[in-house]
């Protein structure tokens, strides 16, 4: 079957992870003491700050690197990151918002049919790997897109990739293969 991209397959983005740098050294102790919603993990040397408005959790290192997770879209991720930088600014650090980059996007998609996993693995030998003793899903890697898909026998697929476009195209790519081995 040809790739039917007109099929209304709703891809739900569940998580967007991004990083940015503040280009200045951050005093974690000060943030921990004066921030209202922070967890200070001294043994690993980082501070977790959770924002409510775009629901995100940010991990802040003293070097000025910040990782932001939990957003549901790329714009939201950027907004959250900027909010975070602003709050750090208010705490008194000379923050410069640089190197913003979306690093990882996690999405979930549901196929309307079930999938035969052993058959699927056989047909897609180098890319697919299936280890029922370890994990119930087939792990399919697309090197060109740098995306990984976890395909379950119920038809639900979890995709992770570097950006939303990659994720979408990964789903489109995998659809014909999965359709072949459908139940």
């Amino acid at each position, binding site marked *: 079957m040809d790739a039917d991209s007109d099929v209304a397959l709703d891809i739900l983005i569940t998580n967007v992870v991004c990083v940015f740098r503040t280009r200045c050294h951050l005093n974690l102790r000060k943030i921990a003491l004066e*921030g209202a919603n922070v967890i200070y993990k001294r043994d690993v040397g980082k501070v977790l700050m959770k924002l409510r408005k775009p629901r995100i959790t940010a991990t802040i290192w003293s070097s000025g690197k910040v990782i932001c997770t939990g957003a549901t879209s790329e714009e939201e991720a950027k907004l959250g990151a*900027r*909010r975070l930088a602003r709050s750090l600014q208010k*705490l008194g650090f000379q923050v410069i*918002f640089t190197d913003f980059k979306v690093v990882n996007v996690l999405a979930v998609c549901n196929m309307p049919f*079930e999938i035969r996993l052993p058959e699927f693995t056989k047909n897609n030998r180098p890319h697919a790997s299936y280890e029922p*003793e370890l994990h119930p899903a087939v792990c399919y890697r697309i090197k060109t897109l740098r995306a990984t898909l976890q395909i379950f*026998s119920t038809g639900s697929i979890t995709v992770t990739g570097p950006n939303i476009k990659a994720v979408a195209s990964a789903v489109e790519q995998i659809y014909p293969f999965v359709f072949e081995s459908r139940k």
Partner: protein
Amino acid sequence: SLIGAGKTPTLGGGFHANLGKESRAQTLQNGKRQIHHLGNQLQLNQHCLDTAFNFFKMAVSKHLTRGRKMTHVIAACLYLVCRTEGTPHMLLDLSDLLQVNVYVLGKTFLLLARELCINAPAIDPCLYIPRFAHMLEFGDKNHEVSMTALRLLQRMKRDWMHTGRRPSGLCGAALLVAARMHDFRRTVKEVIRVVKVCESTLRKRLTEFEDTPTSQLTIDEFMRIDLEEECDPPSFTAGQKKLKIQQLEKALSKKLEDFEGEISSYQDEIEIELENSRPKAKGVFANFTKEDSIEDNTSSVLGEEEAEDEELEAAANHLNKDFYNELHEKDRVERNEDGECKNGNEALVRPPALESLLGPLPTAASLGITESIKECISTKDREPGENTGDGELDLSGIDDSEIDRYILNDTEAQIKAELWMKENADYLKEQKEKEARIAKEKELGIYKEHKPKKSAKKREPIQASTAGEAIEKMLEQKKISSKINYNVLRDLNSKGSNTPKKEDDSTDDSTNTKKLSRRKSIASRNIANPVNSVGKRLRPLISTLPAKKAATEEVTFPNAQAEAPGLEKSAAVLVESGPVTYNPDEEVEEEEIEEDDDHCMSALQLVGGNDYGCDMDDDDGY
């Protein structure tokens, strides 16, 4: 033979290649040993072990053993062989033997399979049946029970129970049923012990199988007939069930809402009636209660919104005032006698019921307003200074006052600091103790800084003008074996040039003072006496030496030729001076070892070279 059991030394290009191969050979030997050790515990045949060793060799050549525990890589190789051969060994068995987490082993195994481009065929639960059946001790009927279990498994496969499941769990369930069918009383516990799954997993598999139509057949029917229809996988049906339940819930809640709406409308009417019939509150109390209700109202209705903007709050208040006041004023008055706090509680209690009515209205309105308000704020915040250049923070859409809430004031900060200190008391104590220990050690002067292990020693790049110099310097640095005479090694390349040798020797003398004395004595003896005695003494020494000597001899062979020119030099230069006249007989043995004919100047020289190699063992020989 002179060289003990082991690989025959190959004289490659230069020292460097040779010494590198030693380590590789050791690694492979070590790996082979471990593979055999593990494989015997798993009762794998020789062919499997050899294949596993091949895998290991491939892995080593691809540098996959770097950064990984050798045991993990060995286990992965063995499991790969098990998979390709189809032996009934589980990854769990290997992890049991090694006491390592299964998932860690699995990760290594997956990586190995991927890197070596080996496709491990998918594991079939049918493979495990004979093994588990044997362990469950069915005696004579072992074969029959196995066959029944196999049939059950095939049925399970067709019913979609086996995708994504651990094969051992399915086996366990099939065997249990098969045993019961043949009148064997095997409890769940016994099966679990053999199959290594959890009791709940087994139960679950059994119930799933129960759901299939096959379970309804009698034993005889099952052996004869095979039902045509196939079932959906259990997780799929579970998902469908969930969906159905969700839909039901939705329908129910809708109905509930309708009812609630009706009820609340009745309530309102009743209250209005009551209001009209009751006297109004007077003076201070009325105002007080009004204020209370407003505050409660905004906090409850707006809920999580956090009403960032004051304008927003005001707008919401304005909207809510009318509704709430109408409905709740009477309530406030009624319960006024009970006290303010109760009022507050009541206020909170009532809003939820009516939120469904009021909720949509004010919040929708407030949402509509937030966007426009945000725009206004963002335009205010957009100062030209902040947007210039890269890396400047663009504040559009960011609300400062909300962010201000994220910053605690002094008292809050203090409290938080105290709390954090209490929580992390243990960690802080540890740190203090560590610091105290380090300080003490420093005082005593025995402070050892435990730096994280660096995998590669960083050496300065060797700066040398000729290849010979480079080799000398490298050997000085490396100091591989105490049995190698480095000075002699150095002479390998510099046969023609005598002067550098001398210089090096003089420098080297200081380092090898111990050897010096010995060599002096030997050298003098050698010079004085003919070779024979020395050679004879040497030979037994050489033969008793272990295979390691092979390396030394390899190394020293090339030196032999270099020695020749140096031999005539002053006796003070011990290193080179060695007996020139040696019996050809003794050299025959040396020649056998040597493979590279170019280096074989003369056996005498070779044996002479060995003299230095045997230095340390001279005492042993006596």
